[in-house]
């Protein structure tokens, strides 16, 4: 009576070991491992766009430069948005002050998006041509595409606070 037990339980154990081994093997070269790296988002970029270490180092530098200026620009946009909110609360018509604040907010937004686009071009030119083209198509769709280009976005500066966490 012991042998059938041994075979049945042994088979189940074999399945468990096979599951664990294949999961471990397949996970070791996947995106799951990137989450434990210092800059997992950039590490993901390296994996996704098949970048060499040299290309990745250049992109890291570009990213750092871009991030340092981005926080300042976003703080300006937040201040302008706060000013606009305050003006909107004071009246129920489009006053010249509101019109002026809207124009300034739009100018800031345009400047921020221009800088962002310049950064995307710089990053894409650092990549191999085919990957750079793919990166550019992907990132512009995600950032400047119609679904992300509404007037109802949240505070830009809060993004940087979130990144600092």
């Amino acid at each position, binding site marked *: *009576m012991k*042998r*059938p*037990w041994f*075979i*049945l339980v*042994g*088979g189940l154990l*074999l*399945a*468990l*070991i*096979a*599951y*664990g*081994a*294949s*999961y*471990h*093997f*397949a*996970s070791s070269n*996947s*995106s*799951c491992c*990137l*989450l434990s790296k210092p800059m*997992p*988002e*950039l*590490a*993901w*970029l390296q994996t*996704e766009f098949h970048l060499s270490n040299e290309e990745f180092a250049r992109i890291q530098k570009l*990213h750092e430069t*871009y*991030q340092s200026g*981005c926080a300042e*620009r*976003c703080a300006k*946009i937040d201040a302008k948005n706060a000013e606009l909110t305050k003006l909107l609360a004071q009246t129920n018509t489009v006053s010249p002050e509101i019109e002026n604040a809207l124009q300034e907010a739009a100018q800031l*937004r345009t400047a*921020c998006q221009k800088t*962002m686009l310049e*950064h*995307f071009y710089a990053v894409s030119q650092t990549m191999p041509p085919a990957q750079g083209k793919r990166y550019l198509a992907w*990132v512009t769709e*995600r*950032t400047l595409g119609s679904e*992300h280009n509404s007037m109802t*976005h*949240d*505070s*830009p*500066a*809060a*993004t*940087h606070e*979130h*990144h600092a966490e």
Partner: protein
Amino acid sequence: MKPENPNDPILSKLLREWKNESPLPPRFNEQVWHRIALEDSAPAHPLLFVWKWLTQSAMRPSFAAGYATILLCTGLTAGLWQAHESSQRASETLSARYVQMVDPYQMPRH
């Protein structure tokens, strides 16, 4: 419990001489046949049936080999599939986080 030796001459002699003189309870025969009938007619539980079939089949080498192969393949496939799913989720999360890093107009809602 250690089994008795059926060829033990002393035991065989004692068993031949033994007579049960205590009276049987009333309608003993009838009750015994009734219980046998009940046991025969009671439907076996399906799981019990499967278990019996499994334990009997596991004794056959061909069945044991097939059983182990199927479980091995199932384990391997499930592990690979689970790893693929986890990788896919991590990739989606990281791509979204990258976009949030570079686009100040996108941020997670708190």
